[in-house]
């Protein structure tokens, strides 16, 4: 029998999709009958349901704002949560969230997942969120005394560390990359791991005016959507030509290979039409098919990946690979949502990644000095101007940084760049230009 009546939450179970309410009820029931020696209140999940029902009834949040942030020596990884109705819901008087650094590309063994669940059943609420939007493993709800206990077990038995929160470097996150994907233009896992280890101090202790995120996409398909979600986005790309296997192109045209590796075979779309489905959809119109041979004008190609995604057996990424680096994406908080801006069109991504670290540190130093409190990097770039940001990065303006002529007119001449400076002889000028 449920501890609290939850008529409004029950409504949420009625749709055809899985419901988080059912999940919490299931865990509440398990905790009621388990023989595990629980270190947190048995009724945590029941009280959580009760509090949520009250929240819907009152139409106000019943969690207090903020609080404790970490375990000893850490200034991140724990989000303090205290309920403002502790007498009614004593089992969730304190119900802190822990953020755990996910392994690169989220590779787990079932053994690890079992250990993680066992740990969290015993020392937390048993409720998790796999994964939070930054990428971390999110462990929802534990008491203050359990924080250090969980941290000890996590680091000593599971060999996993807490992730970032607050004004820290947030847990870096990467696509599956070279581990399984032939499109990867650099080793996303290696770079993600390397930078995570290099910047442990920034990850665990507040270091900046606000949060800072790195994300690593191995190619422009953008499986971790770094362009929309990271202050510094790495997107794999190549400088040379798309490799074409003309025989395989013919096999696609002849219907021997399924387009998109059969991903759209749930419905009959008719015979594959290369002209309509590939050539016609190339955003830069740089492809040509004469019935025998496929041609690509590579200098016009923007590496959008469309043709490669449709015909992966015929087309492959180039061999001179690296990444484009973009800065400044963010969700709407102060300003509206913003995508990252292309800043480094191409960089080779090679160990020990010194060139990347050099760039990161230039940006951090400037932002720490010039950024306002709670101002994301992208907002600061808007405020000081992209030109200033390029100076900070010690980069020259490049036509590839703008979308099309005159749409982003943010590169201005400086006096030193102009022969003769700003001074001019007005009489000379008037000879050619009437008033």
């Amino acid at each position: 029998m449920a501890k609290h009546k939850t008529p409004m939450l029950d409504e949420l179970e009625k749709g055809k999709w899985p419901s988080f309410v059912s999940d919490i009820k299931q865990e509440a029931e398990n905790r009621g009958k388990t023989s595990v020696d629980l270190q947190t209140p048995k009724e945590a999940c029941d009280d959580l349901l009760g509090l949520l029902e009250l929240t819907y009834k009152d139409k106000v949040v019943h969690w207090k704002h903020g609080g404790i942030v970490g375990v000893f020596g850490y200034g991140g990884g724990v989000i303090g949560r205290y309920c403002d109705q502790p007498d009614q819901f004593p089992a969730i008087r304190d119900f802190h969230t822990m953020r755990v650094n996910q392994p690169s590309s989220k590779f787990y063994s079932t053994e690890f997942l079992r250990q993680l669940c066992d740990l969290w059943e015993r020392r937390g609420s048993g409720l998790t969120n796999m994964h939070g939007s930054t990428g971390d493993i999110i462990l929802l709800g534990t008491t203050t005394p359990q924080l250090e206990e969980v941290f000890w077990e996590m680091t000593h038995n599971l060999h996993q560390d807490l992730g970032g929160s607050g004004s820290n470097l947030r847990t870096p996150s990467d696509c599956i990359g070279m581990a399984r994907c032939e499109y990867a233009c650099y080793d996303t896992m290696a770079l993600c791991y390397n930078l995570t280890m290099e910047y442990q101090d920034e990850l665990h202790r507040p270091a900046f005016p606000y949060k800072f995120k790195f994300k690593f996409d191995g190619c422009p398909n953008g499986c971790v959507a770094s362009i929309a979600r990271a202050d510094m986005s790495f997107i794999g790309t190549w400088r040379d030509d798309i490799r074409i296997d003309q025989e395989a192109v013919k096999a696609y045209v002849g219907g021997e290979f399924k387009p998109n590796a059969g991903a759209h075979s749930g419905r009959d779309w008719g015979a594959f039409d290369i002209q309509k489905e590939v050539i016609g959809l190339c955003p830069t119109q740089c492809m040509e098919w004469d019935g025998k041979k496929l041609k690509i004008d590579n200098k016009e190609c923007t590496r959008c990946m469309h043709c490669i995604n449709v015909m992966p057996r015929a087309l492959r990424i180039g061999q001179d690979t690296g990444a484009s680096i973009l800065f400044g994406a963010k969700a709407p908080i102060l300003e509206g949502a913003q995508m990252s801006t292309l800043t480094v069109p191409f960089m080779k991504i090679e160990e020990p990644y010194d060139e990347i670290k050099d760039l990161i540190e230039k940006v951090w130093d400037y932002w720490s000095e010039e950024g306002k409190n709670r101002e994301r990097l992208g907002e600061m770039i808007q405020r000081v101007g992209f030109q200033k940001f390029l100076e900070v990065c010690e980069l020259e303006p490049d036509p590839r940084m703008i979308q099309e002529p005159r749409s982003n007119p943010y590169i201005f001449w400086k006096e030193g760049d102009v022969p003769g400076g700003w001074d001019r002889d007005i009489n000379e000028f008037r000879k050619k230009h009437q008033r």
Partner: protein
Amino acid sequence: MGIEDDKQLILDTLKSKKGKTKFYLKDFNSMFPDRKPRDVKKLVNSMVSEGLLEYWSSGSTTLIGLKGSGVQHEAEAKEE
């Protein structure tokens, strides 16, 4: 100025700000105008480890204050 003097300057400055108990990391930079923010950050974080200062976070932003001053949700939770 030695590191102990730096710490004392931080403690005195925070104590002198009446009515304000939590500060952004950047507020500490202005106490040391000719230092790099990265060095100031290290100093502040080491003072937290020593128990002189403490962090407070909303989850998205981190604030820093003198240990034990201002609203303490944990203490509040116990009092109630």
